[in-house]
């Protein structure tokens, strides 16, 4: 079901970064190339400040690369007008590091926001979709619908953030440090939830995280960023047995 959100023909790569470079005061990403296949889960790991979150902002078109192209669902996000970009973004869900819930809106309104902007569901269908999605992330809709974000715990906020991202049933979900700041138990719950959502909704996922152990468990491929370039890019099994020195050091430190 597409909810009337603009759809595009199937493409070989859900996300394709070609020779992408970004610099702020110093180079952050250097000639990065990455292709993410539909329904694939790719984890981007690495030390702080290596450009992991910048990579997600590039995919969303919130940041322009200095060089290279960023294609999402086949479209170059930096070469299309704002209406086309909006149509692309309608197919992308983003889970922010701090959840980024709208403070003045209730949990229900937060989760319903993207659906309302798309404007394709009647109020009763929209309500059903929000309740269904809240249940999907293990929250009791009756209990949390009328609460404000400030009244929720860190783990619950994160889950509402995930619910808001997946409520419009996007083809691609981007996660920015989904387990950052959570205790180990809640962190494991959120990781399980991501895995379950990928299985049940069959979405393409790009996950930026410092939690390498969790990523090895849920990702189809793992990319390790070092100094703006990939030190490793491959399957979790290959990463575990990699003899690349930095990869081994990174895994050993985790």
């Amino acid at each position, binding site marked *: 079901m597409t909810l009337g959100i603009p759809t595009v023909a199937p493409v070989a790569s859900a996300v394709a970064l070609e020779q992408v470079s970004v610099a702020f005061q110093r180079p952050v990403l250097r000639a990065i190339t990455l292709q993410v296949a539909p329904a694939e889960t790719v984890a981007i790991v690495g030390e702080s400040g290596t450009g992991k979150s910048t990579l997600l*902002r590039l995919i*969303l078109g*919130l940041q322009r690369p200095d060089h290279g192209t960023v294609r999402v669902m086949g479209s170059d996000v930096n070469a299309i007008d*704002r209406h086309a970009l*909006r149509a692309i*973004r*309608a197919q*992308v*869900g*983003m889970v*922010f*590091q*701090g959840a*980024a*819930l*709208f*403070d003045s809106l209730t949990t229900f309104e937060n989760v319903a*926001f*993207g659906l*309302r*902007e*798309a*404007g394709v569901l009647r109020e009763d269908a929209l309500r059903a979709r929000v309740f269904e999605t809240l249940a999907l992330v293990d929250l009791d809709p009756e209990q949390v619908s009328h609460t404000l974000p400030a009244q929720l715990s860190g783990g619950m906020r994160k889950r509402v953030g995930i619910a*808001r991202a997946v409520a419009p049933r996007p083809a691609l979900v981007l996660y920015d440090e989904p387990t950052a700041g959570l205790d180990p138990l809640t962190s494991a719950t959120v990781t399980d939830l991501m895995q379950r959502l990928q299985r049940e909704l069959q979405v393409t996922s790009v996950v930026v995280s410092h939690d390498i152990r969790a990523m090895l468990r849920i990702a189809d491929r793992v990319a390790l960023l070092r100094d703006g370039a990939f030190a490793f890019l491959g399957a979790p099994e290959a990463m575990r047995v990699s003899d690349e020195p930095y990869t081994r050091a990174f895994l050993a430190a985790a």
Partner: protein
Amino acid sequence: MPLPLPSPDHVRRLIQSAVLSLQDVLLLTWQTLRVFPGGRGAAHRLLAQLDAIGVRSVPIVLLTGLFTGMVLALQASVQLAPFGATLFVGRFVAASMLRELGPVLSGIMVAGRVGAGIAAELGAMKVTEQLDALETLGAEPVRVLVLPRVLAAAAAVPVLALIADAAGLAGAALVSSAYLGVPVRAFWGAAVDQIVLDGFVGGVVPADLVQGLVKPFAFGIILSLLACYHGLRASGGTAGVGVATTRAVVSASITILITDYFLTQLLLVLV
């Protein structure tokens, strides 16, 4: 010890920064015009902002107008009493309130109360990634945040200026009758005489009122745009939000005063 003069390089950087800021504000103005009338939910957002910017500013504007009018009456009496012209207090207060003090004080009070609030709210949304979240959910921040605030301020500040005018005249009438021995009826008679004396636009609308409405309309747009601009540019966590809030209030207040001078010159020619 004399203060050191700023270096030419420092002055150049300041001018460069001011020109870039002006360019950014003009760009935000264009982006705001481009998303008019605001699409789905625009009426709901506008009503919410009319309440936040307009209705909730009534008490502060009422008090400001009331006491300004009272002070004006006292000061006018000091100047007019030696000439036995205390009866003209009404004319003095009417001209001052309607043309200048009502619009300017309303603008500055709203810039302080609402401008700070807008900059803080948008700044907090910026540093907590809520603006990015809006964009990813298909809602342009300029459409859902800036446009309703600018429209609401443009509509509300003129009404607030009228409320300040009325409160100022009422306060002045009270002081005149209580302390200066000017009957209320005589005060209002003098105030109306002044409005008539200043003429009518198109033979119908008092010129004083035109000045008193055009200015706050412009002030409403200025204060809301500058507050949104500084809020959207906030960076550096909560400290950055504080900086944005201060800049919003200071820049809006100064811009209102500068704009007031040029608008007055223009309106004196046109009206």
